[in-house]
């Protein structure tokens, strides 16, 4: 061990940072190095000086102790104040009302993941099916291939009495989705199928309850549910949406 290495560990406080092997090396070095031994002396002296100096000008504890007791008494009497008793239930009632109102608002509007997914699906149906914006759709035998790629499963040929006509892969709420279109120009519904594990939490009802969530998005009927590891959203502008959702819930 060299002097510059030993110097780092001479301070008394450094002993708990030195392992057994290093301690041996340090002891051997000190046995043969007068300069480091003198430095060690300095370290102990430094400790004594710092400890002695630190005691200088320390305020008396009595004043601070009295101030602390006063502060504690003030806190204690504040907590015991009769005025606080009626304020707390009132405050609690206000908070409960605010939270309940917020929860209701959240369930039906912005921020609700279920609503966001339904709204996204409704937008896609409006743009790509109702307004027929150009998209690359797969038809016939290619539908199975697309389904296999998107959700590694086959899809029902019918839903709500409507036949499957085309499919494509898209994204809803950042989740890969298989967009299926059932029906033809007169009556069409979109069915979006996603892997439930990839969906944001609370986006679809629990598969245990087998609930079908329904809402209306600017005149568009939307239903969502989960089954067999899939989250499904059905969109259309007439009453067949509910029947199609119920059909799919049982067949998927």
């Amino acid at each position: 061990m060299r002097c510059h290495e030993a110097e780092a560990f001479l301070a008394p406080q450094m002993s708990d940072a030195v392992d057994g092997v290093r301690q041996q090396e340090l002891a051997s070095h000190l046995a043969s190095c007068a300069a480091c031994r003198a430095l060690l002396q300095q370290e102990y002296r430094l400790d004594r000086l710092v400890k002695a100096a630190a005691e200088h000008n320390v305020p008396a504890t009595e004043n601070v102790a009295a101030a602390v007791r006063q502060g504690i008494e003030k806190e204690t009497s504040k907590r015991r104040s009769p005025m606080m008793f009626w304020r707390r239930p009132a405050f609690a009632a206000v908070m409960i009302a605010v939270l309940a109102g917020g929860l209701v608002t959240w369930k039906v509007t912005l921020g609700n993941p279920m609503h966001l997914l339904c709204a996204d699906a409704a937008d896609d149906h409006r743009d790509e099916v109702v307004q027929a914006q150009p998209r690359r759709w797969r038809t016939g035998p290619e539908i199975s291939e697309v389904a296999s790629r998107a959700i590694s499963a086959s899809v029902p040929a019918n839903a709500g009495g409507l036949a499957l006509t085309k499919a494509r892969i898209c994204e809803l709420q950042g989740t890969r989705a298989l967009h299926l279109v059932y029906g033809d120009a007169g009556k069409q519904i979109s069915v979006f199928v996603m892997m439930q594990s990839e969906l944001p939490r609370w986006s679809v009802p629990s598969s245990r309850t087998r609930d079908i969530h329904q809402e209306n998005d600017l005149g568009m009927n939307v239903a969502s549910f989960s089954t067999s590891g899939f989250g499904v959203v059905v969109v259309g502008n007439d009453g067949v949406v509910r029947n199609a959702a119920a059909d799919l819930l049982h067949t998927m």
Partner: protein
Amino acid sequence: MQHLHALLRTAVRLCRHQHLAEDLVQETMLRAWKAFDRYQPQTNCKAWLLAILMNLWTEEHRKPRSRNEVPEEVGNAPQLRSASGMADDRVYVREVLACIDELPEEQRGVLLLSVVEGFSLREVSEILQTPMGTVMSRLGRARAALRARLFARPPIAAAAEGTVCDAMKQKRF
């Protein structure tokens, strides 16, 4: 109130002002009283209190007005003799205090907790919520700064005595 003196001793050197130190300690004790349900019995109460003090100091007392406060005048400080009693080794308290006060805050905190309050590096690391390596580094730099300012003679001059010092025999290796 058992550790009040230790808290005041640390606070005075951190704040460099007596009234601010008293305020800091008062706030520390009140916060400790409010959070006492979180204190785990059988653990080091002094370390817990100093951790609260250091947190408070970091949160609230590093404000511009604190920096502009004039440091305490040490006044007629007594002379301190070195352990060997050699006249040319005298170091005055005010010099030591001035050196400590001039240290950067992080180094000063580590020095006070380890040297003055006697905590191990591991305990200092837990109190300050700082990695042990950082604590060691800050302590090393603080001590080097104090040595450079306080000890005029280089170590090799003292080594001319040619005997193994007592501290070497006592050092726990």
